[in-house]
């Protein structure tokens, strides 16, 4: 009865590395910049620069490679599918083609100066040179996005992310967005996930002891069998919320406008060095992108 044992919240892997110690605000901005940058680049060999950079960062985090891969595993199928469909659905010079029912042709290095062949034709599957190139490009782009975000969440605790977002969104207060309240809600929600899971596990066990059966075949019966779990869970959640609200008010939450923080975020040399590296890297990438290899 340990169906909840594999749930990890976020996927934060505590550590003490350069990346862990960085200011979460800078990590947020840098991850955002990497993602935006990889939409600006449209050559796969340019994209490989941020990719290699991220590989370097993942070495810096000192998190084991297999643990990082575990987080990526769930998106790998999408990456493969992206590659596959792009490679067969792009007009260009065919490398491999199959025409129904049994006609094959294969040419590893097609003559790129010859006229292109349209892909859609009868029952035909054509893998083109351009398709492979484009598929590889799209796959790499996806991989960078996923790797950047997972390196960010692996090295930044949910609380740090909340703090960083609150700080970065400070300007929102000017136009009456309740930034602080939203951040508080987010951190309370994060804080109570494990508590709720614990309650859930306890209630499930208690109802199992009373003969509850969650392995019904029919969907309706199955949904019904969760009522004895969900009602106590909600009752419990509301009670907890109520108690927490009272406890916060008892400690004068909301009396002053500008709360100070226990954990101040502070930019250090690590953040400035990282920023400098990113700026130099992206400036040169954009130079190549927009001046050397003109968009064709």
């Amino acid at each position, binding site marked *: 009865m340990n169906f909840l044992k594999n749930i990890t919240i976020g996927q934060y892997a505590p550590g003490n590395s350069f990346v862990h110690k960085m200011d979460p605000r800078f990590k947020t901005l840098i991850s955002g910049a990497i993602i935006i940058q990889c939409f600006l680049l449209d050559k796969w060999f340019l994209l490989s620069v941020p990719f290699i950079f991220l590989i370097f960062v993942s070495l810096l985090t000192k998190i084991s490679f297999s643990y990082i891969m575990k987080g990526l595993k769930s998106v790998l199928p999408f990456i493969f599918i992206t590659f596959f469909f792009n490679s067969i659905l792009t007009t260009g010079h065919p490398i491999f083609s199959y025409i129904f029912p049994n006609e094959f042709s294969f040419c590893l290095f097609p003559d790129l100066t010859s006229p292109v062949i349209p892909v859609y034709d009868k029952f035909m599957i054509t893998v083109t040179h351009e398709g492979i190139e484009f598929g590889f490009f799209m796959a790499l782009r996806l991989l960078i996005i996923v790797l950047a975000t997972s390196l960010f969440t692996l090295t930044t605790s949910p609380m740090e992310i909340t703090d960083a977002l609150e700080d970065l969104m400070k300007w929102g207060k000017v136009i009456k967005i309740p930034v602080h309240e939203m951040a508080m809600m987010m951190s309370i929600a994060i804080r109570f996930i494990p508590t709720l899971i614990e309650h859930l596990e306890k209630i499930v*066990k*208690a109802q*199992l*002891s009373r003969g*509850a059966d969650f392995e019904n075949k029919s969907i309706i019966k199955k949904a019904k069998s969760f009522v004895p779990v969900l*009602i*106590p869970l909600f009752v419990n959640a509301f009670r907890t919320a109520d108690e927490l609200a009272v406890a916060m008010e008892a400690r004068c939450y909301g009396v002053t406008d500008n709360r100070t923080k226990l954990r101040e975020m502070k930019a250090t040399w690590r953040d400035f060095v990282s920023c400098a590296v990113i700026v130099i890297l992206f400036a040169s990438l954009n130079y190549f992108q927009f001046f050397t290899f003109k968009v064709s």
Partner: protein
Amino acid sequence: MDHIIDISSLSYTYMKGTPYEKLALKDVNLTVASGDIVGIIGSTGSGKSTLVQHFNGLLKADSGKIIVDGIDLTQKKLDLKDLRKKVGLVFQYPEYQLFEETVEDDIAFAPRQFGFSEKEIKYSVSSAMKSMHLSEDMKKRSPFSLSGGEMRRTAIAGVLAMSPSVLVLDEPTAGLDPFSKKELLNIISELNREKKVTVIIVSHSMEEVVEIANKIVVMSAGKIISSGTPEEVFSDEEVIKSARLLFPECTELMIELKEAGLPVKYNLCKVEDCIEEIVKIF
């Protein structure tokens, strides 16, 4: 076959195979005779709750053997429903499991799940409510409108209604006022006397356990370090100290009297026994 529960070298680890692995029970041996009231005592985190969750198959032992009322819990094809009907488990703070609109419906949940007929359900609800000293007119009330003690008794009635032959209670008196505590303990021993239900009660109140149990099991760090009658268990100071427990108050008194040089037996636990012993020396 007078042992209703027979456990030998049971071990259990939480979250096996993760960095959070936690060995909660090691090599536990325990037998419970039919009709006994067994008190399990031990400090917080000693594994009491983990142990009792093995009795009705909520947790599966990593190694060792458990036999409950002739059913081998380590076998492959285990009929969990049958087992859970036999062993009623009342969790700590059981009032958090109430969910129905009326007290009656909530108590009827277990009998309904175990396929009792409507007539049997009606009967078992009434008799469970009577056993838990809940008045008839509560039947139609919402369980959420009851007092803490009444909610607790309703929840226990919800387990009793399936007429288990073994009743396991995990810290049933935690958070109750002294009067409700006393009342609940009386109800439990009454059940044991009248319905011949075997009772296993987890607690960390020594006074409470010695009043009601005829056998005591002391747990510490996932192991059973002592077991026997209350008098046997509380005659070994070392064991009680190492389990980070205290003597019942009256035992404490007897020990002090003994140290003051009075000719008394010191390993008495029940208040009446102590009074008798003190009266004897005058």
